[in-house]
């Protein structure tokens, strides 16, 4: 196969030479828009650039693995040889006609003169047409390597507009391997990351549309560069930018950016707003009416800081982050080991493992090590000791809802799935979880909007080649004995027993070969050092040591970004697991400063949380002002945001004053944020979790957690019979209030405090009074009121 393809390439080379020798006609160059000119059309620089820019080599067109209409180009144009061969030789050479360039099939198709599945890509005699034509006329030459890019530079590298409605040209220069430089603006591809803020023409002219910040992404033959765009507000004449107090470097860096944008941060939130927001964000619950009252009555100046400390130490705070870590690490219940009836229990152990560590405020790097480098025997126990621990955990798990799994040093469940997992999957999962990098595109082709090649993808995946699930030579005997015992003592006709397997580092490593040469590929950290396999050593450990270094480009940054994204509603890099060249952080300095702080403080998660929550930025009001109403990602105000599905379930129960029944796999009285499994025995909860976007955790992507509003959510809140049934629970809020001796005014206040965490406004009181006049029945009026409250946007959103 390899030999054949090499012969093919040599064949092409010789054709290139022959074809090249035809070049005789006089070359006058081609004029480009903007008074530019291409003196000599080059196959790699210009023709392949156009294939990319015009979309010819995209995956749905000729870049698909089967090609289209018998014409195949390399996906995104990474293989000049293949593309040259396709253009020159395939289809019996009819694709181009040197003697009659205008009759070349390539041009007839691209201009729609001959039926073309992809429609008309450019007009006859357009500059694109002339580029192709000129190249064909000159004999369709190809000089191998002429387009090899050393560096792409942008001029200007970033644009700070004065206001909306301006335009600015971005020029793209490429330095090539032969030392030459070329203006390739017309051959590069431009995209905007936010077309509300700035738009860009396909010739690189950027237009500012409205205040905000975004980036324009420039790609040229596999090179990806962002241009930062800043569009400030236009301030009225004489506007005095106010002085805004700062609590820490977070405030300084955010407000510095807002200043550049002429946006004034919103006011500080009031106490009710703050308490509701911070309680939802830290523990996924609502404050009780008593807590709201107590907080409002507290006159101490540091009551917010004290409340933050209290909430960060709350047991449910660890549960909430265990839920987030369950998402990040893929705690996908159906994928866990058989038997089926124990899967939910295993998911709970997974959740509890994280919960214990968050509660203990274990440093982040140590938590990651417990996942990334997990083995079942944790590298210290003898097989005999270990099997006793396994037996005890399995026994306890079979009988009840608590066991010692969380005391195990490492989370071997992460690596224990029912189906065999490929090294590719482990590569993708670990990169997304601990580096915030989405690698999956690079499985089949160079990542179009990031730096990763197929080779890097595979070399990284190879780090996981020695991870084995089964029985190591040392433990084989005890495992076999235990499994024999389990089979023997199982009831007849029951093949649903838990088979003991062990995660260990095997004596050999699976390894993916080099994608082109087929040669062995040494394992390598992403953008980091090679980690050669040595028998008896765990390559994951070396990877981990590289990750945890304070100067690692991903490790600290990706996790502080997750913290920031959780508490502020939008990550500095957003989505939080999409660190890529095309998706730069909205505030580079802040991300760097947070990451440094994290590394300097030994990856102390709670320290960063405390900093974020105590910042003025976090505590801003969600009410916008005239200057910041258009802001979307610079944190000029608190963003109104949906709650996690688990928080929705808990918050509804808080408001209605009822508890939930999760089934036998979960301890009684648990809150939704404490539940580990993605499958539940309670169908009503399964439904609520699904419509509010609890992720199945099957893919390594934060995007699985759907955070957009959807119609079924609204219908659920209005009509779900189980939810409405909770209104009637005797110990629930509504019935207790109706039974109480409280006045109607007091009941109304209590209901507002329990749902919106604030007292009713004068207007609210008036609305209720008006309603009460029309609904004479007290019970009915308050039932309707509670229904109305949980159906407000103010209730179901965090703000």
């Amino acid at each position, binding site marked *: 196969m390899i030999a054949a393809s090499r012969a093919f390439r040599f064949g092409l080379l010789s054709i290139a030479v022959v074809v090249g020798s035809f070049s005789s006609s006089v070359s006058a160059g081609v004029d480009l828009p903007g008074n530019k000119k291409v003196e000599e059309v080059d196959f790699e620089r210009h023709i392949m650039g156009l294939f990319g820019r015009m979309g010819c080599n995209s*995956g749905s067109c000729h870049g698909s693995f089967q090609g289209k209409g018998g014409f195949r180009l390399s996906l995104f144009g990474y293989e000049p040889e293949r593309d040259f061969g396709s253009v020159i030789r395939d289809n019996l050479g009819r694709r181009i006609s040197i003697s009659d360039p205008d009759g070349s099939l390539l041009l007839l198709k691209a201009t729609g003169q001959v039926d073309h599945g992809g429609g008309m890509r450019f007009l006859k005699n357009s500059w694109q047409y002339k580029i192709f034509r000129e190249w064909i006329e000159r004999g369709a030459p190809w000089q191998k390597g002429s387009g090899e890019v050393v560096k792409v530079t942008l001029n200007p590298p970033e644009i700070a507009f004065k206001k909306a409605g301006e335009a600015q040209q971005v020029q793209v220069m490429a330095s090539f391997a032969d030392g030459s430089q070329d203006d390739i603006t017309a051959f590069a591809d431009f*995209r905007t*990351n*936010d077309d509300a803020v700035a738009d860009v023409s396909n010739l690189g002219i950027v237009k500012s549309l409205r205040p905000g910040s975004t980036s324009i992404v420039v790609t040229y033959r596999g090179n990806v560069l962002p241009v930062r765009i800043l569009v400030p507000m236009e301030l009225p004449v004489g506007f005095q930018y106010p002085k805004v107090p700062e609590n820490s470097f977070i405030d300084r860096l955010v407000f510095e950016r807002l200043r550049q944008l002429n946006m004034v941060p919103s006011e500080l939130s009031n106490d009710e707003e703050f308490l509701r927001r911070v309680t939802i964000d830290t523990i996924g619950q609502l404050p009780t009416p008593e807590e709201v009252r107590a907080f409002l009555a507290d006159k101490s100046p540091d009551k917010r800081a004290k409340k933050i400390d209290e909430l960060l130490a709350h047991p449910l705070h660890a549960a909430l982050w265990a839920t987030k870590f369950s998402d990040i690490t893929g705690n996908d219940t159906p994928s866990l080991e058989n038997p089926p009836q124990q899967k939910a229990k295993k998911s709970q152990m997974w959740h509890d493992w994280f919960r214990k560590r968050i509660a203990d405020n274990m440093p982040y790097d140590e938590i990651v090590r417990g996942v990334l480098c997990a083995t079942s025997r944790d590298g210290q126990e003898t097989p005999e000791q270990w099997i006793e621990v396994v037996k005890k955990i399995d026994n306890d798990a079979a009988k009840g809802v608590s066991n010692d799994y969380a005391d195990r040093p490492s989370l071997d469940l992460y690596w224990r799935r029912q189906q065999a997992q490929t090294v590719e999957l482990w590569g993708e999962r670990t990169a997304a979880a601990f580096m915030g990098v989405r690698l999956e595109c690079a499985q089949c082709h160079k990542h179009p909007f990031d730096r990763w090649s197929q080779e890097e993808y595979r070399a990284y995946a190879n780090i996981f080649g020695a991870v084995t699930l089964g029985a190591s030579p040392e433990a084989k005997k005890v495992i076999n004995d235990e499994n024999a015992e389990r089979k023997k003592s199982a009831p007849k006709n029951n093949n649903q027993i838990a088979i003991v397997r062990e995660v260990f580092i095997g004596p050999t490593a699976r390894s993916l070969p080099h994608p082109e040469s087929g040669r062995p590929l040494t394992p390598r950290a992403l953008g980091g050092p090679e980690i050669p396999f040595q028998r008896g050593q765990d390559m994951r450990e070396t990877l981990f040591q590289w990750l945890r270094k304070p100067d690692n480009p991903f490790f600290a940054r990706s996790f502080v970004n997750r913290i920031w994204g959780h508490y502020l509603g939008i990550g500095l890099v957003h989505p939080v697991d999409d660190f890529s060249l095309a998706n730069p952080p909205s505030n580079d300095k802040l991300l760097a400063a947070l990451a440094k702080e994290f590394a300097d403080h030994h990856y102390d998660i709670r320290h960063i949380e405390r900093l974020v929550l105590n910042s003025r930025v976090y505590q801003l009001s969600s009410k916008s002002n005239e200057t910041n109403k258009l802001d979307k990602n610079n944190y000029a105000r608190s963003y109104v945001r949906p709650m996690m599905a688990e928080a929705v379930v808990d918050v509804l129960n808080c408001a209605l004053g009822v508890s939930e029944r999760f089934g036998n796999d979960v301890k009684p009285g648990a809150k939704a944020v404490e539940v580990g499994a993605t499958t539940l025995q309670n169908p009503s909860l399964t439904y609520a979790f699904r*419509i509010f976007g609890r992720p199945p955790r099957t893919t390594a992507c934060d995007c699985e957690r759907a*955070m957009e509003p959807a119609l079924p959510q609204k219908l659920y809140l209005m*009509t779900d019979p189980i939810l409405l049934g909770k209104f009637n629970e005797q110990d629930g809020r509504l019935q207790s209030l109706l039974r109480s001796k409280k006045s109607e005014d007091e009941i109304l206040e209590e209901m507002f405090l329990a749902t919106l965490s604030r007292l009713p406004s004068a207007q609210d009181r008036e609305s209720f009074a008006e309603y009460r006049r029309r609904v004479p029945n007290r019970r009915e009026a308050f039932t309707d009121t509670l229904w109305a409250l949980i159906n407000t*946007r103010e209730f179901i*959103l965090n703000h």
Partner: protein
Amino acid sequence: MAQFRSDCEGFARRDFLKIGAAGIFGLSLPQLLQLEARANQPARGQQNRRATSVILVWLAGGPATIDMWDIRPNAPENIRGEFREIPTTAEGIRISEHLPRMAQVMDRTTVVRSLAHTIPSHGPATVFMTTGNKPTPAVQYPSIGSLTARMLPAAPGVPPFVSFTELRNGTAGLAGYLGTGYNPFIVEGAGAAPANNRGPIAANLRVRGITLPTGFTLEQLENRDRLLRSFDRTFEAADRNADLVDGLDAFHRQALDILRSDHTRNAFNLQQEPEALRSRYGTTAFGQGALAARRLIEAGVRFVTISIGGWDTHGQNFNALRTRQLPPLDQVLSALIADLDGRGMLDNTIVYCAGEFGRTPRINQNSGRDHWARSMSVVLAGGGFRRGYVHGSTDVQGMAPATDPCTPDDVAATIFNQLGIDPHQELMTPTGRPMQLFREGRVLNRLLA
């Protein structure tokens, strides 16, 4: 929050729109007009829309289609089985003797005998058949119902996608990468009942979330809504710019539309149908579901899934088929096809009857048949599918397709072609990866009239 994100591939219709909107640079006027014209063109194929809705009749467990639609009379005894074949109203098509009513509507039906895939396991096979994409761990493909809901919006007040069952306990038949908003609305009180279940009658059926619970009147809803709107005014001052706040408001209004509309609720009021017709569908939950499905389609629903379980016949296959499985299927499916046809709805409604796989041609020692994905039959009717036509064939022993082999992807692509949706159109996953609807699917032109 829908942001234009960088993606793997690129040249989307959106780019044309953008050039049209803001591309005053570097384009000549004719170019611009061309590009705009292209952007305004309907997606390829859309002009050929034949069908507007689909009813999926799901046979959960994997039906022994070799004993139903593809009898092998010339195979050895341990394959042939116990059933004989009978002629039908479609010339040359013969089916099982236990589907006599289906034989009467065969002239309006299409049988595909050469479908095959490679997954003989219930879960992933169900995903494959109901999504038209081979499952992979990397992507959660949306079910064809969810895709229909995404591509063909329904009328106001009507949910686009309704399912009488949660496939595989809610692990299949969902919206996948499209997001939870495109999940089916689930009908409660039905479920994948055993075939002979006479259980819940239609009066108890309700679509979860789109009808008010008993005792909650529309008038009460309007009252409460007024109160809620007055309470919600306080919040108006907050972040008015957030898509989220406006989005929720739009969904609020849509939800009210649905709750006020009696279209969907009415669909379950089977008493409005003549007695004779109701008895043709029969009194099983499955039969009533099928009749309600037809009424839902009339109300404007785009995609309805009804289901009948019990097909996993590892033991006593023939007894189970003869007594329990085939009689209700025969009755209900034939009634549905005839009813749709009689109302002139068959031309724009596709009926698709399939399960996750077929069953082993070789009969096991328990007179059963085990899982077999390498050959199976599915049945289609309406929506421009060729009437009275058999597509493909299996070999003598029924082990594998002999002619015109095709895949779940192909059938899905063909159905979408009939809905006027280009099966290779791309949608963006939340990670920004463009996905063709049915990457491997080819439109089976010979299936079409």
